[in-house]
């Protein structure tokens, strides 16, 4: 019997099963099984090499919660957290503007997306030159008459996280931007036309048409960005290795697990981190629900 001859109810079941089979299998194999292993390691004192893993119960967790310095690094996450909103804001702003007819819009799209095209090595190298004394940033500030507020952008521990969070915005904004741009393009042109006839200006169109239509994508981006802020890793790792007060929880976890051979403890820290991220995400979701 041919598939197309099946009644639609049955077809539905077959399609649901067939279409989700591979993605779910991949999801389980490469996301959930590793997490299960990680949880298992977190109850051992495994060093990452030894053939035997000794079961130590909750000792790793006790250790984490009796050492408050492990959680101090979350203050660093606040910088990335704040930067996230800024990043979303400008990404949304540019995506909206470039959805309208603006001169040179392809050029601008290219420029905004460009940082995302670069790989991590290039970023680390460029920003070293950028933040160096008498480097690019200092030169620019001198040129626009702001020479007197020049700082050691990375050398000053009060500023380092702002500089790094700024780098992170520069790098990932293009990603949010292109996704918002794509999402906005799903809105039918007719809706805009109709609103124009009704005398809506761009601000109205943004608030009443664009925002509601792409709410789902914005929510997802926020979730990803906030969880990304809590588990910030790449930018501070390649730029400073977490030194001078720029250490994040993930950098700390990675060095405990792999530098000092405490995979058990590191896994427990990763489990704690994951729980924190999940809780924050749930809070965020329920906040959105209330608004609705």
């Amino acid at each position: 019997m041919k598939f197309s001859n099946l009644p639609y109810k049955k077809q539905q079941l077959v399609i649901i099963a067939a279409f989700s089979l591979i993605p779910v299998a991949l999801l389980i194999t490469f996301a959930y099984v590793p997490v299960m292993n990680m949880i298992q390691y977190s109850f051992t004192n495994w060093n990452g090499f030894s053939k035997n893993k000794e079961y130590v119960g909750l000792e790793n967790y006790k250790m984490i919660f009796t050492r408050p310095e492990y959680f101090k690094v979350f203050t660093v996450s606040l910088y990335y957290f704040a930067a996230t909103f800024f990043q979303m804001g400008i990404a949304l702003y540019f995506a909206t503007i470039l959805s309208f007819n603006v001169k040179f819009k392809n050029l601008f799209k290219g420029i905004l997306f460009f940082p995302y095209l670069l790989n991590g090595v290039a970023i680390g190298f460029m920003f070293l030159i950028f933040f160096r004394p008498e480097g690019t940033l200092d030169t620019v500030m001198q040129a626009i008459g702001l020479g007197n507020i020049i700082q050691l952008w990375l050398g000053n521990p009060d500023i380092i996280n702002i500089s790094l969070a700024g780098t992170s915005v520069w790098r990932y904004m293009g990603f949010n931007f292109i996704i918002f741009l794509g999402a906005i393009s799903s809105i039918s042109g007719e809706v805009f036309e109709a609103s124009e006839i009704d005398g809506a200006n761009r601000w109205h169109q943004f608030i009443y048409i664009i925002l509601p239509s792409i709410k789902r994508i914005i929510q997802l981006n926020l979730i990803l960005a906030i969880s990304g802020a809590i588990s910030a890793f790449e930018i501070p790792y390649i730029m400073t290795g977490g030194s001078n007060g720029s250490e994040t929880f993930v950098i700390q976890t990675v060095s405990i697990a792999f530098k000092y051979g405490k995979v058990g403890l590191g896994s427990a820290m990763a489990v704690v981190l994951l729980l924190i991220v999940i809780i924050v995400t749930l809070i965020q979701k329920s906040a959105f629900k209330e608004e609705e």
Partner: protein
Amino acid sequence: MSLSSVLLVSSMFLAGCSDEKTSTDKGGEKEGEISGDITVITQRTDIVDTIFKDYASKFNEKYPEVNVSFEALTDYGGEITPRMNTKDYGDVLLIPTQVPIEDIPSFFEPLGDLAEMKDQYMGVEERAVDGKVYGIPIAITYTGIVYNKKVFESAGVSEIPKTFEQFTEVLQKVKDSTKAVPLYTNYAAGWPLTQWEGAVTTVAGDPDYYNIKMINEDDPFGKGKPHYEMYKLMYDVAEKGLIEKDPLTTDWETSKAMMGRGEIATMVLGSWAIEQIKSQADNPDDIGYMPFPTNADKVIFPLGADFQIGVNKNSESKEAAEAWVDWFINESNYSVEQAGGISASKSAELPEELKQYEEQGVEFSLLTPANDGQEGLLDKIDKESEVGFWLEDHKKEIVEAGIGNRKESFDDIADRLNKDWNKARAKIK
């Protein structure tokens, strides 16, 4: 070193690691018989496609039946370690420092008995377990201070400083009378700060200190102890502004050229760096090398092992893999040409440059290995305590404290390290 002695050493080595090859005179025939495919894993991403390809073809002249392929990893320790939980980590590889010494036998093939091999090779004790050798250092280097002679001259320094006090005075003179950075830490790259650790033995003036005495101390970072004195210097120079203006944005490549041009007076580095800096200098003779300052009577240049090369226990071509190890150590000349050190083989001659130091009364000395029953203990405490003697984390903190970016003083950091050390030591013992 003559060719015949190379062959002699290599056949001795083979005899040491494989029971079948007891007679050395058949060596030539035997060599031809070794066959198989081997994968060699290296940390040298920069020369894997050039120099290593040449090595392979030279190796094949001797062992035509062995097919060698290479893999280069950029962050060696980080990338090899996840692989070690499988069987697939090449045939010949460097022993990652992350592997606890006691676990080495579950991953590597023994290369021979320590009792025999320690007469032939330097540094083989370091990762030996239960009298068996698992790795041979790919090079032996020594640690000291690279300096620019011209800068010293224009600062009015005529004599090489010996003590801590003299050294700090020299740096101050450089600061006062030249534009050069007195001591460049290369903080941003991180790893150059770990180079200091190699000089502890110079500070102690005693090759027994590191592996034998320190392990029985409660406070290796206590006042007056070598670690305290040495890192106090790191702190002091940072505090007195004798280092670069913004340590966070330093760049290792640029620093070599800056020293070559006389914009940097000194850097604490292993001997491997001398050639690299000379090659960037307008006049290579401007670049000099001296021992780390010490208050001890005897001045020692401590010899230290680079990575150790070993054979995967699960290798299917162990003979071929061992042949590569042997060839690489004894015949490739990697240690001198590519690692800026000397060969681990004791029959290799000391390079000319080292002889001049011996004339100055500076002694070259290998660290005394740990006492029986205490092998690997230092490594264990180091990891458990997170002191990380060979890691940059706490050194960065010391520099940060020096330039006033931390609330802690140097003594606070030293106390903290002592506490961590003691706690771990109590737990392990």
